[in-house]
């Protein structure tokens, strides 16, 4: 191949410098803080003390797994229905799906809170129907609902994309070979849309497990998820060492699960709109 010119070699230089300073270096700082004490000496104390947060880890994991599962159960049929719609309505459905993704999650969480609030529409409506006064805000259900509501579009979009890419002839072939509707779904469509499912699951699970404002707004401060713990460590605590340790562990867990999931799919690119 031709030798590279100076321009070609230098074009990437600003980006390399930037990545080193602002992507790599910050992560090294996380590692550094996680393994040092207040005086800068090496210690495993921070990592070991995480055992006292095991309840938080379990609760966060539980909440986000439930949210991810529900998102999948709601989102997969939705993506399927959307992909079966006529071309014209597909464009509209696509815009409808993407619009919430572009609205700040903060705003959407806040609007959900408005709906579920004690004086809000839902509780007023239910009281009128004769139910006793229900409190949503501050329950586990509200937090999980918030996750589902916030991140559902991120589950649907990649699955929808991989469904529209699906060659119709596979379905015809399956029918031809004697599959009925359900068999086609489970034996052909589901396996062929795995890459979309993997991206969708990733895109719901990662923000769910690391969120803090959903639990703050909808959990009414009564649930401490991983995100809340980290946030509090950094906003209020005197030292950052424990927060850094939690962040490090969470990041490693997530990167490992991303790597494992990506083994199942090669088209991670699809997730970007």
């Amino acid at each position: 191949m031709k030798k590279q010119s100076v321009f070609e070699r230098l074009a990437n230089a600003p980006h390399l410098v930037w990545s080193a300073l602002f992507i790599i270096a910050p992560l090294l700082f996380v590692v550094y803080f996680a393994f040092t004490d207040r005086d800068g000496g090496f210690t495993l104390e921070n990592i070991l003390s995480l055992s006292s947060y095991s309840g938080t880890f379990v609760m966060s994991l539980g909440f986000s797994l439930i949210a991810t599962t529900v998102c999948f159960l709601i989102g997969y049929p939705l993506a399927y229905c959307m992909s079966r719609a006529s071309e014209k309505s597909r464009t509209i459905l696509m815009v409808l799906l993407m619009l919430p993704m572009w609205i700040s999650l903060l705003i959407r969480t806040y609007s959900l809170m408005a709906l579920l609030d004690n004086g809000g529409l839902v509780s007023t409506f239910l009281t009128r129907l004769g139910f006793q006064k229900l409190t949503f805000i501050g329950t586990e259900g509200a937090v999980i609902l918030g996750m589902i509501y916030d991140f559902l579009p991120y589950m649907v979009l990649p699955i929808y994309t991989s469904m529209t890419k699906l060659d119709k002839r596979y379905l015809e072939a399956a029918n031809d070979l004697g599959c009925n509707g359900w068999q086609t779904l489970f034996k052909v469509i589901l396996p062929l849309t795995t890459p979309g499912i993997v991206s969708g699951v990733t895109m719901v699970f990662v923000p769910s497990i690391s969120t803090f404002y959903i639990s703050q707004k909808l959990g009414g401060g009564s649930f401490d998820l991983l995100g809340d713990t980290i946030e509090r460590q950094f906003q209020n605590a005197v030292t950052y060492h424990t927060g850094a340790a939690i962040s490090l562990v969470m990041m490693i867990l997530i990167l490992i699960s991303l790597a494992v999931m990506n083994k199942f799919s090669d088209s991670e690119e699809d997730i970007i709109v």
Partner: protein
Amino acid sequence: MKFLSRFYMALIFFILYAPILVVIVFSFNGSGSLSHFSDFSLHWYRELFRDGEALSALKNSLFLAVTSSVFATVIGTFAAFGISRAKRRYYQVAVETVSKIPMMNPDIVTGVSMMLLFVGVASILKLSNVLGLWTMLIAHTTFNLPYVILSVLPKFRQMDKSLTEAALDLGCTPAQTFFRVELPFIVPGVISGLMMSFTLSLDDFVISHFVSSPDFKTLPLYIYNQTAHEVKFSMYALCTLLIFVILILLIAVNLAGSAEDRKLRKKNRAGAKGGRG
């Protein structure tokens, strides 16, 4: 079956939009109630515009979105060029992977790690109060970069290599080739990267939350603070305004995109005809 699927889609989209609609509707509610719509009023909007803090947050947000998206687009476009030209495959993969870290990492980790960097460097240099405009600018540029690279890099890879060679052949230096031939070709990717960066920056709350200071607040930070304890109807007004701005931006991008598509399709048709003739 058809009816069932329509009903299902309608139901889910209704649930998806109901809270947003509630916010929009009740932002025009004269009385401060979340369940009874009394009279149409712009009261909360007036209150919002009287709030100097909201306006300065808006100004900060716009400034930050513009500068960080331009920075990210310039750096990212050159980076995509460099990556696409890199000779060794593993180098390409390594650089791409590193640049994607802020995209794959949870926002909170990105935010925390940058905060630690800024605070750590500041303590080494014996500075105080480093957080503010500059740290926000750096953080936003950083998380915008992978999106720019991701939208520009495929354009470089799509480009026929012989276009570049033709420019070199006709006397362009590699730098001239980049500006005269490659850049015009990848412009659509650059624009979509810029737009995406702009909206991401405008939207970002989590990362900003960790690297900002009380004297440099963006809109999402302002909303977060305002809504910390009580329901504020002026925030409904602000959210409504933001939703409409995003709606308009989204429509603009889609229109631009479909115009580009039409042009491309026309071109392809002409090309096919040319090939036969």
